[in-house]
């Protein structure tokens, strides 16, 4: 049996830091895309128009009913067959994760909106605001506050899911560990190191979120 020797990772540590940074980049961009898509899909799911409601529900169901890994592979390896050109790894990873996240954020948005008291919409409409104005100025700001904890969870999930970008050969954190494992023939240390990087990132993010939540709760 061999003892753990983390010093073998040290010469490659810059790969881990760069990988961690990339993971955060992918995640942030994907979450942004997810929030934009999710807001429209979430509101669309509550539309009075049946086709809109159907389309948005279908989107959410398909996204949530298929594995992210498969979605990613379709996006990167499948789509070029039809498009005639390849999407580079980074935008492919960001788009696939963002589109995936949109499906989950849609449910978060819908839940957030439904959690706002009905009277708020009625009060806004009774003052002559249109549905859109009421949504923008009254409902969404309040819904967003209720959405922050689940959105935080979504961010953490996405950060971990960004490791799947390894499968399309993108050099993020997990890929860094793979490279080091290959070079040193010692897989345990680099993968443990990668896990530690993810853990530190998710834990510090969760801590930041709970701080933010407390701040926001104070203004209630």
């Amino acid at each position, binding site marked *: 049996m061999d003892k753990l020797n983390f010093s073998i990772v040290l010469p490659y540590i810059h790969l881990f830091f760069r990988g961690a940074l990339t993971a955060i980049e992918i995640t942030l961009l994907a979450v942004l895309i997810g929030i934009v898509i999710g807001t429209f899909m979430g509101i669309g799911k509550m539309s009075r128009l049946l086709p809109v409601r159907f389309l948005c529900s279908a989107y959410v169901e398909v996204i949530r009913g298929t594995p992210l890994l498969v979605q990613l592979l379709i996006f990167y390896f499948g789509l070029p067959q039809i498009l005639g050109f390849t999407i580079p790894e980074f935008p492919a990873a960001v788009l696939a994760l963002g589109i995936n996240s949109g499906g989950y954020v849609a449910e978060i948005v819908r839940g957030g909106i439904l959690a706002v*008291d009905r*009277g*708020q919409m*009625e*009060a*806004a*409409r*009774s*003052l*002559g*605001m*249109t549905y859109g*104005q009421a949504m923008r*100025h*009254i409902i969404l*700001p*309040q819904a967003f*506050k209720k959405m922050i904890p689940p959105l935080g969870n979504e961010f953490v999930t996405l950060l971990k899911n960004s490791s799947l970008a390894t499968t399309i050969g993108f050099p993020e954190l997990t890929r860094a560990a793979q490279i080091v494992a290959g070079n040193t023939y010692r897989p345990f240390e680099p993968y443990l190191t990668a896990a530690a990087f993810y853990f530190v990132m998710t834990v510090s993010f969760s801590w930041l979120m709970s701080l933010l939540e407390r701040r926001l709760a104070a*203004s*209630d």
Partner: protein
Amino acid sequence: MIEVKDLYKNFGKLEVLKGINARIEKGEVVVVIGPSGSGKSTFLRCLNLLEKPTRGEIKIEGKSLLDPSTDINKVRQDVGMVFQHFNLFPHKTVVENITLAPIKVKGISPKDAREKAMELLERVGLADKAECFPASLSGGQKQRVAIARALAMNPKVMLFDEPTSALDPEMIKEVLDVMKDLASDGMTMVVVTHEMRFAREVGDRVLFMDEGKILEEGTPEEIFESPQNPRTKEFLSKIL
């Protein structure tokens, strides 16, 4: 000013309004009383289309509310509403609650809207609370802000949906005082309430509703001193 003809409203199979006919004149204070579940609130909420009537006719200043060509958002600017549960916007300060609709809906400049809001807050006795958030106000204060918010749109008529029902007893008076002040100023008001003293003192006319119909109407004296309908008598004997 408001004309209601043969108004029906169903919620699914449940018939809540069964043919309401009413006229409300300019400057009149009409108080709607009746047991709970009688359709009073639904009737009131039909007057600004928060509930869509199943059939019938509502005209405000001659304009039909149910005509598809009527811009309901325009109509609502002229019809202020005060809710039982205040429904202030919790993420906005008191003054922002009041200025939001004038700015966004009417396009009034923020400065003018604020001036008007401060005037209104002065009127309801809450000028010192302008920068507070609603959560820090008492129920009575919240309702006075809600009234100021509705007034900021310069409505031609004000609807009150049980405005004091969610208040602690010691806060009812401050809200009723604001409403009295409004009535004496000539505001057209439709008030759904259980405050019989208010109905007597301020009401020009009282409508008694039960089971989706207006069973009796008259001056407060007529209704309270010599009710004709047995249901009115029964209701009043229970609450007075």
